[in-house]
């Protein structure tokens, strides 16, 4: 029992307090609470947030599933031939390229292929052109037919015929026209395969979705 438990002589109520009558809430206040009860609103918000998160996850995971990259090597070969012939001159405005090839590779041309949603970057090594096709998304390894892994490469790289496919970050680079002796030097100059935020988010979303069974919904 603390000191407050000691009953003290009571002098009786303060009669003036009886003047404190009922307090009217603002007009419509109670009705607004009834019409929009706080818990119902909170639950609705929580459900909406949950659905949004699940939706985003499903969307992202679905995006991952739907946009895994299978390089169209034959198509890229045709583009390389079409866009690297003729008189190519190094272009200064082509410096915003994804690849940072060795100094003796000069950016020459940048194009866009609607069919494969690929960016084509053409470089010149002397008079020898090399095309780098850049596609956004993770590499679909199961779709690599006849691919051989390039051992000792600083990143995941595959050889498909005369072409080289590299999984770099969340992009897939397909190089056409590259000489064998240049492969190591070029791979050493490509963006390091550090998993970026977007890639991590996609991977986490894909993992979560798989665990929650969303994979079957796709």
């Amino acid at each position: 029992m603390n000191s407050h438990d000691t009953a003290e002589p009571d002098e009786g109520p303060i009669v003036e307090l009886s003047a404190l009558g009922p307090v009217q809430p603002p007009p419509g206040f109670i009705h607004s609470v009834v019409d929009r009860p706080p818990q119902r609103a909170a639950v609705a918000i929580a459900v909406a947030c949950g659905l949004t998160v699940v939706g985003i996850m499903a969307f992202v995971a679905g995006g991952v599933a739907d946009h895994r990259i299978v390089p169209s090597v034959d198509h890229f070969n045709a583009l390389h031939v079409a866009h690297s012939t003729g008189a190519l001159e190094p272009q200064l405005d082509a410096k915003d390229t994804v690849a940072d090839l060795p100094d003796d590779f000069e950016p020459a041309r940048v194009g866009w292929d609607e069919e494969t949603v690929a960016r084509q970057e053409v470089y010149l090594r002397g008079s020898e052109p090399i095309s780098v096709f850049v596609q956004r998304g993770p590499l679909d390894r199961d779709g690599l037919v006849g691919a051989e892994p390039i051992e000792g490469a600083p990143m995941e790289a595959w050889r498909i015929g005369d072409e080289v496919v590299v999984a770099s970050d969340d992009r897939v680079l397909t190089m056409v026209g590259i000489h064998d002796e240049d492969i190591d030097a070029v791979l050493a100059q490509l963006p390091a395969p550090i998993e970026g935020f977007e890639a991590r988010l996609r991977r986490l979303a894909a993992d979560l979705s798989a665990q929650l069974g969303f994979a079957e919904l796709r």
Partner: protein
Amino acid sequence: MTDETVPTWEEVANDYGRFIYTLAYRLSGNHHDAQDLTQEVLLRVRRGLDGYRPGNLEGWLSRITTNTFLDRVRYTKRRPADPLPEYSETTIAGSAGADTEMAQHDLPDYLQQLLLELQPEYRAAVVLKDVLGFSYEEIAEQMDVPVGTVRSRIHRGRSRLRKALAA
């Protein structure tokens, strides 16, 4: 007040919303806080209605309202956004011109202002006893403290109010 059946949440809100609001206003002293408090109380009522046993519904609502109010006071004390008023342990700072002040202001408003100068626990006990008319035993149950503590809080609260009114 005795009820034989458990009302729905909508019935509680419609039939007792004004009662809850009155207590909330007397405890908090302003309409903004009273509205927040009433909403939170109704939220707790909604959660707890399944566990309510028919009986003294106003007592049950008073208990929830008082506890919600005191929880908020404690939370605010832990995380003060604004300086809290100092509660005098000895007396309310009644102004020298209390009569003049009472004459200039509405009596209920003045009393309400004096109530706000009481410590929250004293204020709650006095409001439940002298404004809403609950018994010591009911208040003890509502505030979850011994009856002696209720008597002590009410006595001290009243004493301070009397000193302020007499000043």
